[in-house]
């Protein structure tokens, strides 16, 4: 077991394009870190540099106290689980797990003990004599896990290990991977493009985009205080509404197309005319009560009935093609008609604001939350 330090690491494949650009992550011993981001953002490349399967163009990777930049993958004391499992097709399940141990010259009895123990943990005992092609997808996945576990490595590396499984199995394996990791306490780096997987598995989430780490933090932190409009749009389902707006009037109101919103009444003023992106999660809007003053009106264009929830799709009133699109999560029992006008109330302090040009977070929420916290402290 060991901590992993990734220090200002970059990967340049050819010319000047950086697949990974100046990323630093400190991973304490035993922590589960998830790299998440859209396809092509450089997650696998970063993971493979830690594994030693890809050379490190710039920066430093250390495992434990040892810098591993030039160290052979077989000597880094890591184990990796691949998306397509990468089992050896010509070896039985037993040999698939034992292969790495044999190459390290481990005594036969010890190998046997470890393989059987891992097989027991993963309920693979009755499959040890089979070849990979005689296994189901889920069983292959478990063998791949077993091959990693028997090594007792310092670090587990996972590259989208559940992507080839069906939804139900994926859910089960997710829980199982988490439990195994907790049980063995092995430092883990897990790559996925699936934000649900990322949120449920991670101690620490690294949201990547275009080779850059947009935000590093706990899942809740990332969800509640996204560092950029990209993170805000990527984490959470359905995605956060990101609405182009311009600061107006006294610096507390926002012009969104033809309508005007004032979601930040408590915040300090911004300079009028500044372009910003307003971020509102679908679950932070609700229907206004009969006599309540609405923050905005939604012109409904479609309703997506999910059972427990209903998602209302539409545009901010007055509607029309120029108006900003909006999705609202409503209780399942709400019935909506297309074209109807729905008055909405925004949960206090739940809106996010991002710079219109850089996409970075503008920290107003703090100001909005602070008086409440102060009030609570006084009580």
């Amino acid at each position, binding site marked *: 077991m060991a901590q992993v330090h990734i220090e200002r690491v970059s990967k340049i494949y050819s010319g000047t394009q950086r697949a990974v650009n100046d990323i630093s992550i400190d991973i304490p011993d035993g922590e589960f870190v998830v790299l998440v981001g859209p396809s092509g953002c450089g997650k696998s490349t970063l993971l493979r540099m830690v594994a030693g399967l890809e050379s490190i163009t710039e920066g430093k990777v250390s495992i434990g106290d040892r810098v591993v930049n030039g160290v052979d993958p077989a*000597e880094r004391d890591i*184990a990796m689980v691949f998306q397509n499992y*990468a089992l*050896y*097709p*010509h070896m039985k399940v037993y040999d698939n797990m034992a*292969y*790495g141990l044999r*190459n390290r010259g481990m005594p036969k009895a010890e190998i046997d003990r470890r393989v059987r123990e891992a097989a027991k943990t993963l309920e693979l005992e009755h499959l040890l004599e089979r070849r990979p*092609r005689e296994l189901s997808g889920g069983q292959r996945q478990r063998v791949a896990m077993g091959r990693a576990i028997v090594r007792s490595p310092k670090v587990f590396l996972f590259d989208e290990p559940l992507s080839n499984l069906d939804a139900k199995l994926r859910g089960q394996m997710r829980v199982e991977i988490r439990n195994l990791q907790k049980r063995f306490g092995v430092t883990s780096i897990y790559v996925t493009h699936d934000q649900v997987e990322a949120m449920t598995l991670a101690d620490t989430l690294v949201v990547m985009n275009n080779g850059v780490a947009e935000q590093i933090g706990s899942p809740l932190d990332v969800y509640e205080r996204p560092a950029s409009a990209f993170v805000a749009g990527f984490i959470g389902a359905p995605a956060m509404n990101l609405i182009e707006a311009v600061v107006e009037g006294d610096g507390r109101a926002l012009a969104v197309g033809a309508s005007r919103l004032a979601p930040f009444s408590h915040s300090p003023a911004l300079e009028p005319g500044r372009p910003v992106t307003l971020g509102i999660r679908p679950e932070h809007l609700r229907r206004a009560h009969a006599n309540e003053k609405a923050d905005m009106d939604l012109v409904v264009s479609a309703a997506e009935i999910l059972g427990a929830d209903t998602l209302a799709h539409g545009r901010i009133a007055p509607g029309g093609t120029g108006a900003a699109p909006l999705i609202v999560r409503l209780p399942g029992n709400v019935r909506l008609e297309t074209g109807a006008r729905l008055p909405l109330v925004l949960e206090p302090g739940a809106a996010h604001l991002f710079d219109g040009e850089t996409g970075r977070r503008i920290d107003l929420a703090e100001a909005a939350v602070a008086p409440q916290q102060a009030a609570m402290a006084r009580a």
Partner: protein
Amino acid sequence: MNKVRFGHSVIPYLFLLPQILIVAVFFYLPAGEAVRSSFYLEDPFGFGSTFVGLDNYRDVLSNAEYRRVAIFTVWFTVLVAFFALAIALVLAVKADAVLRGAKSYRTLLMWVYAIAPPVAGLLGIMLFDQHVGPIVKMASWFGWNLRVGVNYHDTAFAMIVTAVWLQIAVNFIFFLSGLQSIPRSVREAARIDCRSGFRRFWTVTFPLLTPTAFFLVVINITYALFDTFGLIDLMTKNEPGNNPVTLVYKVFLDGFRGNDLGGSSAQSVILMAVVFVLTIVQFRFIERRVHYS
């Protein structure tokens, strides 16, 4: 899956007819004729033939010259197949290492396959040319006066080298595509599991290559036995008597040069039997140990 049924229609047989005709005319008829004439003594001047039972077989098998040719054929086949496969495998492994990730080269390399056989054949012969052949010249540096077509062993050497040379390109392409079809992640898993590249090759890469290798062993034995006819003909043209030939070439020699149709037919029947046995052995014993993933 549902089977397509034609009932008792003649249509399927019609579709098969061209194939059956070709096989019948060019294989079954001559084979039958060979079996028949192997029991007869043909008059060399064409005045009929006499039934002699197994005499032709007895003559062939007790003939010391025939045994000498048979032994040479075995050596020739084993050496040609072995070196053609081994050299091609080494080259393919090297090429594969360069090609990983660089897909554009792959199509380029297919040209080897398209161009090589005729050009390589010509080159191979030229390499051993008595006057301009570089191999002859190189041999002379070491005091070896290489006389292809005159000295038995020199000819054998030249035949084997040229036969190997001719077959390498084909083997190379098959090995290379076999190597490229091994999933990248499997190799990477092996890199994490095993430090030594040599060990990795024999425990992971090569076993995954066995379907290709098995197929190529069959192809190469067939090649060495039968497809080298033209090469042998070219190299021994003037003096087949003093030079090494293979069994297939001897069938031709005895039948068409020696006019011993009965003996030559008996030899081809023996060869047919050998091929038949080889095929069974290959499929029974080798295939069982092959991993088809």
